Structure formats: structure tokens, C-alpha cells
């Protein structure tokens, strides 16, 4: 009887210890190091799960420990249990982003001054870190779609006569489109820097993209000149050729890597619209007098373009943040 | 006093008891005889509530067995010792442990008392030194006696023996027969002995009942049964199946 009791006790205790210690261990609690808890506020936390890893400069230094919506419902408070011996940056802020395509999100502690463009949540309590959740790919694509829609609207208004004012607006828009296409090219470059395996094939493609972008810019300059009264047809032809070439290259890139293709998607759709402008100009009344009806669409488009530009800049500076989405 | 009146019992289609009557008065020993499969064991199981009658009444000390709640039924079972046909010893326990089982259910009995009384009971059936043996390690006759020791441990008022001598050699049969008589003297228990062994029945019983076709066919002192003119009884007692055919 006594022996029975000992053995039963051993098996039960052992299983409980294994389960409890194992669970804690897998949740990242190591007995050897002490942890401290810091808190951060976010306007939203995406798909961050409790227990996700917390990184600093790419090194795991702790775990997310507690996620709760603030009582007034305006923010989310996230606890971060991090190793006590790690020194955080003076202007520490917390970024939340997906770590892989499998949906395991993680938190990263960054220096706020190094990320001026990100729209961090501002906590009123100075002890709480500001937080920002990176928009995921679907949001980027949505922005690109919005731009494409606006351009399409502009195109639809082609038949309507345009005034001096709208001509001026159009000039501005076209200028911006030129800048954007330049940035698309740079972005492609940045992507490639982050993804080593794509090297050769993609590099040549990129050079062609750059050349095409330059050509597009030149063409747009011509369009500008044209506005003050020039030859329509040849310019329009130029534009169309450029756009077609641009699109072919985008297709090339898509075949090379799915990752790049998603980020280049909006460039593609923009250019489709661009091509349509050219075509409609040609088949229209043969004059630019019908180009734009009202200036609101142009203004709207400009503000969206500004957003996209900001996003692209961030994209270019921190490609890793976005590249993670497409490559493991 | 144990009394069964008009008891009917069927298992599925098969009617085993069809209006069975029997009375076992305090202090007496009744032998219930009958062919194998006649339903003798079924009668005993009704008395301790292991089986419930379909119809009729079974009472012990004036209380209807079927109407007892669990506590009262356990109290009744402590007053009744049951010796099973094949002993039904718990084969995972030593003989001493087997005998102690019933005693452990009696409140207020110390561990030492339990052990002492178990040893006494084994002594009483001449198994004094075998308390540490397991049922598989002893002979059939010893097993029967161990079963008796287990049944008498709680000092029951009634003892039910289910074929206590069946399958034993003549010497052991006599030993068991004497043991039953001795137990009546020493613990004063009322006995109901189920058997188809007539020698034992004549030796231990002061009255006999013959079970046939679900009823008591004949009832009386051993002397009366022995000279019964009923061909069915006669056939059984003389071991002559031809006699049965004369009534068929």
C-alpha cells in the first residue's frame, strides 16, 4: 500500500510539473532571468496574440503579457514583459507587425525619432509607451485602388471641357504621377535589396523599369508643354507606348516573385488608367479642351497621392517591415 | 423467521418459481432439496434481496425484503450469512482478508477485533493456519469451509448454505455436515440448507422441503420425506427416473 501511494504520487506530481513548467517555458518565461513589465497604448493591435514575442533590434527580449481595451474604449493597452537587463531606447515606442505569412504577429521596440512618419498613439501617461500597428498589405492595396479609381474618374471626365484652372490642376496631377512612378521604381530597387535570391533576373528588370520611368517622366513633361498648345497626337502615342512597356515589365516582375508583384500591383493599375487617358485623348475630340470638368477630383487625387508618397517613402526606408509579408 | 409466500420468478420466457411457499422458523434448520436447475439458488437469492420476486412476498423477521431501503437491506444482509455454491471467495485476497470483509462493515469494530474474530472463524472451520493463503492455493473442501467461515464471521442470525457439500468426497462431505451441526450449536443460527445431496439433508435438517416445478411439492420431517408415496418425490429420493414416467 505504501509503495502504491509513492508511485501514484510520483506519476501525478511529475505530470503536473511537466505540464506547468512546460507551459510556462513555451510561453517564454525562463527562470534564469528576471523580467519587468512595461505598457504601451495602441489605437488597434491587429492580430497580436497574448504571449507574442517582443523584439529589440531583431532580438527577442520578452513576451506580450496582457492585452486589454481601455475602459473608455479609445485605445488598447498592451503589457510587455521584457528581460530586466535590457536597456530600452530613451524615446522607445512599440511597433506591431506580422512576423510571417502564418499570421504570428509580434511587437518590436523602436526609437520613435527614427520613425517620424508613423502615426503613434499618444498616451497621456508618460510612463506608457506610444504604440503603432503597421497597416498590412491589404491596406496598401486599398490606397492604391483609391488612387486608381480617382484617375479613372478623371479619365471619365475627359469629354468635358476644361478651364484654365482645371488645366493647371491637371498639370499638378500629372507632375505627381511622374513622381510616383519614379518612386515605384525605387521601391522595386529596395525590395530587391532585401531579397537576395531574386538577384539577376530582377535586377535587369529593375533597370528597365527605371528607364521606362524616366521615359514616362519625359513624356509627362511633354504633356505639360502640350497644355500650352502643341502637337497632340505624337505625345499621346508616346504616352501609350510608355504605359504599355511599363505594364509588360510589371508582369515580368510578377512572374519573378509574388512578393514584388503585390507591391507593384498599384503601379500597374495606375498605369492602366494612364494608358486609358492616352487612348481617350486620341479617340476623343482631338483636343485637350475636354479633359477635366471640375477640380475636386484632381484635388482629391492629389491628397491621396500625398498619402501614397508618404507610405512609399516609409516603404523605401524600411523595406524589411513590408518584405516580411511576402517572404518568410 | 424467513417466510416466502406465493413467490413467482421468471427469467425472460422461463418461469423458475411458480408460487413457491416456505417458512424457516427461528432456531430450526430446513433442507431445501430438488433437482439441479430447479431454482433452489434462486430461492436463496430472493431472501437476501439479490433477486426480486415478480409476484408474492419474501419476508425476514417480519419485514418485506422488497420494501427495504438500502440501509435496511444492508442491515438485513449483516444478519444473514450466505455460503455460496462455489464459495465465491474473493480470489484477490487471502482467506483471512476474505473473512474480515464482512466484519469491516460493522461500525465500531477495531482493527484488532476484526483480525481476532477472523482468526477465530477460520479456527472454527479447521483452517486455523491458512489465513495467509489465497483461494487458489487451497483445495475445494477447504474453499467451502473458508466460505462458511466468511459467512459466519458477522455472527448472523440466519445461515443460508447453497449446496455446501456438492462435489466433495464422502469424508469431506461428512466433515461439512458435522460442521453445520456444530455451528448451529455454537452460534445458534437458523439454517436453510439447499442441496441435492440427501445424506447431508437427513443429517442436518429437522425439516425438509422438496422443490419441483417451481413449487414445494412435499414438506415434512426427514423421516416423512424418506417414505413419501408421491412418485415425483420417490423418483428423486431413489434416483429412479422411470418413476417419473408413470405420472407423465
Amino acid at each position, binding site marked *: *500500500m505504501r509503495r*502504491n*501511494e509513492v*508511485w*501514484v504520487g*510520483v*506519476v*501525478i506530481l*511529475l*505530470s*503536473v510539473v*511537466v*505540464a506547468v513548467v*512546460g*507551459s510556462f517555458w*513555451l*510561453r*517564454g518565461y525562463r527562470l534564469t532571468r528576471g523580467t519587468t513589465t512595461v505598457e504601451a497604448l495602441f489605437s488597434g493591435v491587429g492580430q497580436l*496574440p497574448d*504571449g507574442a514575442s517582443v523584439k529589440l533590434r531583431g532580438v527577442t527580449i520578452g513576451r506580450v503579457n496582457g492585452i486589454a481595451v481601455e475602459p473608455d474604449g479609445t485605445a488598447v493597452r498592451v503589457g510587455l514583459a521584457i528581460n530586466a537587463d535590457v536597456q530600452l531606447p530613451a524615446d522607445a515606442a512599440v511597433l506591431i507587425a506580422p512576423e*510571417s505569412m*502564418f499570421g*504570428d504577429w509580434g511587437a518590436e521596440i523602436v526609437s520613435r525619432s527614427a520613425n517620424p512618419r508613423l502615426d503613434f498613439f499618444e498616451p497621456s501617461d508618460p510612463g506608457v509607451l506610444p504604440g503603432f500597428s503597421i497597416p498590412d498589405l491589404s491596406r496598401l492595396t486599398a490606397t492604391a485602388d483609391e488612387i486608381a479609381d480617382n484617375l479613372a474618374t478623371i479619365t471619365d471626365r475627359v469629354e468635358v471641357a476644361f478651364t484654365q484652372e482645371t488645366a493647371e490642376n491637371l498639370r499638378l496631377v500629372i507632375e505627381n504621377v511622374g513622381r510616383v512612378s519614379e518612386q515605384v521604381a525605387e521601391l522595386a530597387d529596395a525590395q530587391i535589396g532585401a531579397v537576395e535570391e531574386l538577384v539577376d533576373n530582377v535586377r535587369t528588370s529593375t533597370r528597365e523599369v527605371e528607364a521606362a520611368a524616366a521615359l514616362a517622366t519625359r513624356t509627362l513633361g511633354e504633356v505639360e508643354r502640350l497644355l500650352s498648345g502643341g502637337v497632340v497626337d505624337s505625345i499621346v502615342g508616346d504616352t501609350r507606348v510608355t504605359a504599355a512597356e511599363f505594364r509588360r515589365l510589371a508582369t515580368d516582375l510578377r512572374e519573378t516573385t509574388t512578393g514584388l508583384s503585390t507591391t507593384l500591383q498599384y503601379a500597374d493599375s495606375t498605369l492602366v488608367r494612364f494608358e486609358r487617358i492616352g487612348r481617350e485623348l486620341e479617340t476623343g475630340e482631338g483636343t485637350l479642351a475636354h479633359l477635366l470638368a471640375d477640380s475636386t477630383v484632381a484635388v482629391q487625387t492629389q491628397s491621396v497621392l500625398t498619402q501614397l508618397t508618404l507610405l512609399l517613402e516609409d516603404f523605401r526606408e524600411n523595406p524589411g517591415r513590408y518584405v516580411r509579408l511576402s517572404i*518568410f | 423467521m424467513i417466510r416466502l409466500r406465493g413467490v413467482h420468478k421468471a427469467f425472460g420466457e422461463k418461469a423458475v418459481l411458480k408460487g413457491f411457499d416456505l417458512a424457516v422458523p427461528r432456531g430450526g434448520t430446513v433442507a431445501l432439496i430438488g433437482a439441479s436447475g430447479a431454482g433452489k439458488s434462486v430461492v436463496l*437469492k430472493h431472501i*437476501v434481496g*439479490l433477486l426480486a420476486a415478480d409476484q408474492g412476498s419474501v419476508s425476514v423477521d417480519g419485514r418485506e425484503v422488497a420494501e427495504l431501503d*438500502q440501509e435496511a437491506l*444492508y*442491515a438485513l*444482509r*449483516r444478519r*444473514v450469512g*450466505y455460503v*455460496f*455454491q*462455489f464459495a*465465491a*471467495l*474473493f*480470489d484477490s485476497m487471502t482467506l483471512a482478508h476474505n473473512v474480515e*470483509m*464482512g466484519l469491516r*462493515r460493522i461500525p465500531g469494530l477495531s482493527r484488532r477485533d476484526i483480525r481476532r474474530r477472523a482468526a477465530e472463524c477460520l479456527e472454527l472451520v479447521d483452517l486455523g493456519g491458512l489465513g495467509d493463503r489465497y483461494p487458489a492455493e487451497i483445495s475445494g473442501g477447504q474453499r467451502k469451509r473458508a466460505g462458511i467461515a*466468511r459467512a459466519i464471521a*458477522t455472527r448472523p442470525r440466519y445461515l443460508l448454505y447453497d449446496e455446501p457439500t456438492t462435489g466433495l468426497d464422502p469424508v469431506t462431505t461428512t466433515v461439512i455436515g458435522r460442521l453445520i451441526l456444530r455451528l448451529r450449536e455454537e452460534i445458534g443460527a437458523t439454517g436453510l440448507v439447499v442441496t441435492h445431496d440427501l445424506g447431508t439433508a437427513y443429517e442436518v435438517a429437522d425439516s425438509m422441503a422438496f422443490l419441483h416445478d417451481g413449487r414445494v411439492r412435499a414438506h415434512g420431517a426427514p423421516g416423512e420425506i424418506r417414505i413419501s408415496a408421491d412418485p415425483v418425490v420417490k423418483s428423486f429420493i431413489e434416483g429412479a427416473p422411470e418413476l417419473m414416467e408413470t405420472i407423465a
Partner: protein
Amino acid sequence: MAGKTLDFVGATGRAALRFAATVGEWGVLMQDTIRGLRAVRIWGGLVFEQMMRIGVASVPIALFIAAFTGIVLALQASYTFTGAVPVYLVGSLVGKTMIIELGPVLTGLALAGRVGASIAAELGTMRVTEQIDALETMAYDPAAYLVLPRVLAGAVMFPAVTLLASSLGIVAGWLTAIQLLEMSTPEFVRGLETFFVPFDVVFSVIKSFSFGLTVTSLGCFFGFRTRGGAAGVGRAATSAVVASSMVILVFDAFWAAVLL
């Protein structure tokens, strides 16, 4: 033709009724068992022995099965993931599968054979040799004396054995990953950590707890209703194993549907 069809319909109906009646009888036994809880004096001293026989004695077979399952999971995962999926997911697959599925279910099925059959055979023998009747005549409630200690021991020990088995399965998977596959310990551990949530352990305990109740209660049930000598005992053991295995798989699906 019509007669044959009717026969078939009738047979189906009879089988369904018999099944319902069997479930009902099992329910009655369980009710008696729960009522038996009051009689602590009867079963109190017996639980440890049953924990020993049902739990401790089953540890070796459970560990053996789990170790090989862990090895096979790691090998098959790496084979399946080649190229397309990052290799650290081998750790996720081994950990997740061992904890929430194969640990509890394989342990449950192995113990259905080992424990369920032995309980049914033991109680079946006690039934046909009238030992259960003897218990009753000695004022013991068989549900409290025989069923309760076994069911309690199963309810406690199945989860314990399962937790040990799952853990060893993961260790075996890890050893396989670092010895046979070209993985490092941190990689494997990263995979383990990535999808682990503590609820997995709770889920495993709930499952194996229900398997413990199933195997022991069905073993007792089929043992208790044994009829007809040695052949009957054999039939009881077989029925107990078959029924427990089926109920385990049904419970497995049930818990996955209800709790996940």
C-alpha cells in the same frame, strides 16, 4: 421481397432499441456509482491501488507509443514541408499534434486495450463466480466497492499518463529533429513556441479525463453484465475494448467541435 425488407427494418429497429437499452443500463450503473460516492469508507482505501494498476502500470506502454509517434511526426513533417514551408514548423506540428491530438487519443486507445480489457475480465470473472453477489451479501455496494475506485483512478491517471506521454513525444520529436533532420534546437523550440497556447494543455487534460471515465466505466459496465462462464468473460473484455475505442473517437471529435 417486401417480407425481406420488413425483416431488415425490424432488425434495425430491434438493434436500435437494444442499443438504447444498453446505454440506459450503463446510465443506471453510473447513477449507482455516483450515489456510491457517499460511502467513502468502502472505496476510500481502494483508489490508490487502482491508480497504481490503471495509471502507473500503463506509463511504460504510453511512453513507448508516444516516443515513436514523436519520431514519426518529426520525420513526416520534415518530409512534407520540404522546400515550400519553413523548417521550424516541424516543431509546431510535433508540439501541437502531440499535445492536443495524438497524446490523448493514442494513450486513450492503448489504455482502452490494456485497462478496459483487464477491468472487464476481472469484474466479469467476479460476476460469473458470484463474487459480486458475495460482496452484496456482505453489505458492500458493488458500485462503490468495484466501480468507483476504478473510475476515479481512470479520471485522475489518464490525464497524468497522457501529459507524460505527450511530453516524451515532443522530446522524441526534438531529438529526431536535431539528430536526423538538419534542425537546431532553437529552431525546433521556436516552432514549438509559435503556436503554443496554454489552453492546449487544458484541452488535453479535458480530453484524457473523459477518455479515462469512458474506458473505466465501460470496462466495469461490460464486466458487470457478464453472463456465461469463461466465454462470457472473453466477450465482455472484447466488448469493453471495442466500445471504449469507439466512444473515445466520438469524444475526440466532440471536444474538437465544442472546445476549439
